[in-house]
């Protein structure tokens, strides 16, 4: 290409011309959210370095101890260091969140593009998607995890399957609305092939809403993992996740609330941040809301 677009223009490419309003001021909320999330991600990455103890090593003599110099936040029912577990838990929880978001967006995007553009496939695909939507996701997740064994991947798959129809619908609705746009019709008139139109004209339009959707999937996946753990269908307690730390600690809710409090706090902060960033992105990317806000 003759001219390389400047960075701002690259962003423009992703979000479309309507997306980035001029003179937009970022409130404090999203900045704090980004900072918190950044810290959590860093903690997750460097978990082995900042954990004073192995998060899986038990010490029967140190069960349910309060905070001390050795155990920053105390210990759990197996005498494992709570602080190290919460920090390490960030890894798995984030992995599940990001993994579920990534997989469902990827699969949903493919199916949605096809469905949005090919009438015949659409009828069949949407029936199947409607059916998947109709199955209550938490029950499906419990069933899938209980039946396949509670590994991280079965949790991710269990969360992903109910999310896919939502992504498909989103992508499809974008495709359906954009395919009537004059520039797409112009591309047809210019003799562009269907796959090319699909991928080059339509697909980029789905990215912005998909990013927003991905943040919600990520947040809800982390929450769902916690709920699955609570119901006894989560990841093995040997691998700490915020969900199963809480699930293990829940019977001590009154005696030793810190077992729920700290992972719960981290989880809520994390999801709060992701949701806030998602909301900010949505407010930025949604031209309808923008119109009103000038």
């Amino acid at each position: 290409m003759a001219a390389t677009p400047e960075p701002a223009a690259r962003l423009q490419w992703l979000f479309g011309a309507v997306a980035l309003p001029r003179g937009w001021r970022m409130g404090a909320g999203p900045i704090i959210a980004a900072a918190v999330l950044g810290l959590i991600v860093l903690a997750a990455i460097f978990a082995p370095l900042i954990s004073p103890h192995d998060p899986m090593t038990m010490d029967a003599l140190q069960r349910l101890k309060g905070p001390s110099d050795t155990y920053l936040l105390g210990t759990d029912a197996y005498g494992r260091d709570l602080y190290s577990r919460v920090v390490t838990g960030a890894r798995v929880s984030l992995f599940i969140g990001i993994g579920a978001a990534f997989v469902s967006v990827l699969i949903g995007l493919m199916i949605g593009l096809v469905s949005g553009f090919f009438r015949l496939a659409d009828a069949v695909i949407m029936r199947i998607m409607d059916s998947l939507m109709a199955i209550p996701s938490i029950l499906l997740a419990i069933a899938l995890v209980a039946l396949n064994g509670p590994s991280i991947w079965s949790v991710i798959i269990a969360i992903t399957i109910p999310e896919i129809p939502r992504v498909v619908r989103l992508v499809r609705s974008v495709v359906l609305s954009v395919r009537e746009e004059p520039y797409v019709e112009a591309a047809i008139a210019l003799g562009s092939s269907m796959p090319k139109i699909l991928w080059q004209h339509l697909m980029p339009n789905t990215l912005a809403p998909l990013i927003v959707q991905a943040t919600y999937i990520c947040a809800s996946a982390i929450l769902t993992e916690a709920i699955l753990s609570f119901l006894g269908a989560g990841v093995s307690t040997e691998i700490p996740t915020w969900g199963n730390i809480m699930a293990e600690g829940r019977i001590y809710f009154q005696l030793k609330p810190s077992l729920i409090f700290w992972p719960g706090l981290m989880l809520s902060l994390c999801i709060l941040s992701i949701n806030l960033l998602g909301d900010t992105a949505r407010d930025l990317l949604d031209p309808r809301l923008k119109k009103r806000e000038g």
Partner: protein
Amino acid sequence: MLRIRETLNQFRGHTRGAVTGIMAAALLAGTGMATQALAQEKTITAVMHSGLRVLDPIITTAHISRNHGYMIYDVLVAVDENFEPQPQMADWTISDDNLTYTFTLRDGLKFHDGEPVTAADAVASLQRWGKRDSGGQLIFDVTESLEATDDKTIVWTLKEPFPALLDTVGKQSALPPFIMPERVASGSADEAVTDYTGSGPFIFVEEEYQPGVSVTYRKNEDYVPREGAPSWMAGGKEVKVDTVRWVTMPDAQTAINALLSGEIDYIEQVQIDLLPLLEASEDVVVETRDDLGYQTIGRMNFKHPPFDNQKIRQAAQMALSQEDVLATLIGNPQYYKVCGAIFGCGTPLADETGSETLTSGGDIEGAKKLLEEAGYDNTPVVLMQPTDVVSLTAQPVVAAQALRQAGFNVDMQAMDWQTLVTRRASQAKPSEGGWNLFFTNWMVPEINSPLISPMLNGRGDDAWFGWPEDQKIEDLRAEFIKADTPEKQKEVASRIQAHNMENVLYIPLGQYIMPQARSTKLTGMIASPVPVFWNVDKVE
């Protein structure tokens, strides 16, 4: 604050009274039981350790179904707290050659439908039980005939003596021979019964039964208790309340809060860690129901490497420490006991031979050495960990850590209990859906004799999960059956103990007790491994 709370309590008391009034009125209108003074209706609400789902106590060994069995059924013979068989529904005589047992039903036995209990009912029930219970099978292996000679007399003739017959028929766990009407008991032993007519002290209220949630028992007004004080499952079962409701609470803390606030009367099992919540209350008593409690155990798969090698089994056993397991599982030393006896400490056959490493904190170094000698090739050990059963989550985790320290390559796989139960039945290779090691808990009365302990079966594929082929244990068991004096039995039992530790048929990991908690309003509850609701009164 305190004052406010008091006021609030009073307020609450008032409203609750009002609500009870409304409810009572509704009940009156609904059932037409206007004559009975409802203020005197005594109901015990009890939170049991698990939800009742299988109503046939013969088809399953689930403890909750057995407990249910003791509520609505009665047994011919029952073992008392001294492990002595005592007459319950029937008295007996034994012929001099020890081959013929004659049982005579006592008077006044009636099923809930009003029909008298006959010898034919008992025979059908015993026969169905014999198809399910392993001890029962052993007896029927040597049975010549079992007949009802008249309405009250049952004659059981053996081909060879079976000294433990009464102990087996009178055992408390896991499958006691409950007596059902013949029409019910003559059905298949593989299909659960659907007619819940018993002759026991309580009547099952079918309309109010919610599987897994709650079950209601009404007092059997026609039940005639045996003379004498109750002792375990023997003695007089006198019912002093009108209704007993068992409810399940999936959340342990909810149950405790409910007991503290007086919404329920009784919790069958309290997690030791939560005891501090109850200790502060003056309205609640925490106590142990019996001193035997549970034995927690590990079982290996003899069919697949590495545990098909006796030395490696020994190495694994050597690495484990009962203290570590119990401390993690239970925490409070008051409620657990390091015990190397496979038949359980506090039982007649208890013997701790060969359990030194287990009871003294494990010997990681020794295990390492043994492992090296055995030429362990780093085959992964697939260790199954149930995530949804509180009393089984700690053992695998502790064991995995110890085994790893000893040099094992441990692959701990988490699953829910159902998956574990399914998977342990699989004889496939561990890499193909099989397994190497799992843990479970037994009530001590379920394993306190070589006759009933499922782990001591050495018949290969016909043995319990793990499938050891061990002729020696089979010989020892045969010897035990023949032993006709307690001394002889004890002697054989100690050899069985030694052999078990040597061949590592299973690893006893110690004993623990689950205390119960009850409202101080409940009085007269007897000590027994099985929670019973006869003899209990509720005083307001």
